[in-house]
Each structure stands twice: as C-alpha cells, then as structure tokens.
C-alpha cells in the first residue's frame, strides 16, 4: 500500500502524470496557505514553492495547521518545508523566506500560482506576476466566517479589476480554523482540477462562501 492508495481510481494515468509533473507556487503560508500546501503535498503534486517572510507566533496556532508550539519564532516557509518532507520525502519543495515585490520572478517550472496572501496590495502584485508569466492564479480570501475563491486564467479580467474599490483593513482580520479549512480544501480541489485539465473549475467564476448559513454561491464574471 502506498500513500495514494485511497486515491486510486480517482485520477486517470494521464491526470496522475500531470499532477506529478506540476509545481505550484503557494504565496502566503498563513491559515489558507497552510491547508493548501499540506493538501497539495498529500494529494501528490510534484513540487511546491513556498513563499512567506513571516515567523510563527502564538495567534497562528488556532488555524495554521503546519505549525506547532515548538515552531515559535521560526520562519513559516522553513517549518512548512520540514513538515511536508516528513509527509512525503519525494516532494520537490523550496522555501523562500522573502516578501513579494513587483521585481519577483515566478520560476519557469511553476505551473500554477495560489494566492493565499493576507493583503490586497500583495495579492494584486502576485496577480500581475502570474499574468506576466502566463500562469493561472487561484485566489482565496477570507474574513470571519465568509470568504471567496476565484481562478483567473491569463485571458481573464485581472484581480485588481474584479476587486476594484477594495481597501486594506487595519489589524489582523478575524479568522477561524473552519473557514481556512473549507477555503483551503476548495483551493486544493481547484488546483487539482486545473492541473488535470478537468471541467468545473472556477475560472472567471467567483465562489462566495458563507459558513453562517452554509451558502455557496457562484457568480460568473463578465469578461
């Protein structure tokens, strides 16, 4: 029995080959990025580039599943890499402890970009970079029990157009384990769909999630 025995039959040989050949850039390793990185690792993605310049602190532990009390003060990207390699020693993974800036270059081997950042300015920079590199961007964001997931292809309207008029909020936003788990799981599923070329992905479709009522609503975006 191998690690993927319970996924047997859920991926065609072609899809599995695509998954093993894919490298995903996960920008932001907080509540969302934790679930996304671990989910992609356990699902069998070939490689991960983990980007975050923050260190682990106590308020992270209510939802950021990659970290424990033993990791306080360590860089999240490094802790994440160490943990994921304990799950899968065949994972190709790089930990980049750095802030996202407009002069950042997305490596050519990256197949797809995940936006799990925590502020609009960085999110828009990441989307610019993904567009320039011709990569899909899977975006997720949350506030309290609410959140959204959206995928932009290189021919989609850009994130700063879709979310024109947003403003940065001061201080840390409320975030629970549940909303991070739900949105993180959705992002993992979305990445698998896109990498495998499956139908039903959220390209140009904004998924709005409400955990107070369990409402999931898809709003198609105009091109």
């Amino acid at each position: 029995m191998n690690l993927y025995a319970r996924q047997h039959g859920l991926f065609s040989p072609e899809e599995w080959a695509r998954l093993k050949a894919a490298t995903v850039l996960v920008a932001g390793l907080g509540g969302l990025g934790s679930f996304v990185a671990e989910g992609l690792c356990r699902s069998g993605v070939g490689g991960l580039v983990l980007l975050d310049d923050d260190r682990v602190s106590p308020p992270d532990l209510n939802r950021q599943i990659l970290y424990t009390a033993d990791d306080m003060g360590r860089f999240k990207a490094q802790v994440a890499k160490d943990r994921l390699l304990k799950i899968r020693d065949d994972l190709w993974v790089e930990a980049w402890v750095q802030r996202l800036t407009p002069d950042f270059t997305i490596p050519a081997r990256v197949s797809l970009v995940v936006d799990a950042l925590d502020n609009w300015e960085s999110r828009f920079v990441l989307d610019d970079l993904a567009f320039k590199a011709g990569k899909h961007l899977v975006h997720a964001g949350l506030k309290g029990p609410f959140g959204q997931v959206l995928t932009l292809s290189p021919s989609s309207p850009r994130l700063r157009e879709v979310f024109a008029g947003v403003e940065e909020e001061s201080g840390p936003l409320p975030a629970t384990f549940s909303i991070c788990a739900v949105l993180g799981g959705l992002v993992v599923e979305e990445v698998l769909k896109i990498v495998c070329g499956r139908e039903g992905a959220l390209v140009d479709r904004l998924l709005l999630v409400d955990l107070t009522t369990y409402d999931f609503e898809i709003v198609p975006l105009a091109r």
Partner: protein
Amino acid sequence: MERSIKVRLFGTLRLKFRPWEMEVPLTSPMKLRDLLDLLEEKYPGLKETLLSDGELRKGVIILKGGQNVWHLKGLETEISPGDTIVIFPPGAGG
C-alpha cells in the same frame, strides 16, 4: 419580459442586513444611485455602508452582471430589468 432585478448580499453585510436576497420590481432602467435609494427603504443603513459623501465607499464590491461597477459608470451605472446585483465586502485575510 423581465419586470424585476435581483439583489444579493454576501459576506459581512449578512451580519447587518436581511433578507440576503431580494427581488425588486423594476420595469424601466434606473441608475445605481437611485436603486440604492430604493434599497435604503428595505435595508435601513445600507446607503451609509456603501456610500461616503455621496460616492461609492471603498471596501465593498458591487457587481452588475458579474462586472464591478467601478469599471462601469459607478453610481451612474444603468440597472435594467433582469439584472442581478451582487454586493459584498471581499475578504482580504489569508
């Protein structure tokens, strides 16, 4: 022939306003600004949440037919019978 529009509220707006979905009778086009006046009667306080000094307040997104009204004509955007208006403050947190 369509004789109404759909208005849907999402995100933290749902903590302040109900119902979250409403069908508003509309037989001829009107400006978004006028629609917000109409909605204020049904959602007291909504205008203050969405407007500041009579202009769209930052932080809340209004989509008409899947397009952000900031890229249309803002408050002067024409709303026609059959349109769906989605209003929500997107989550920036990660």
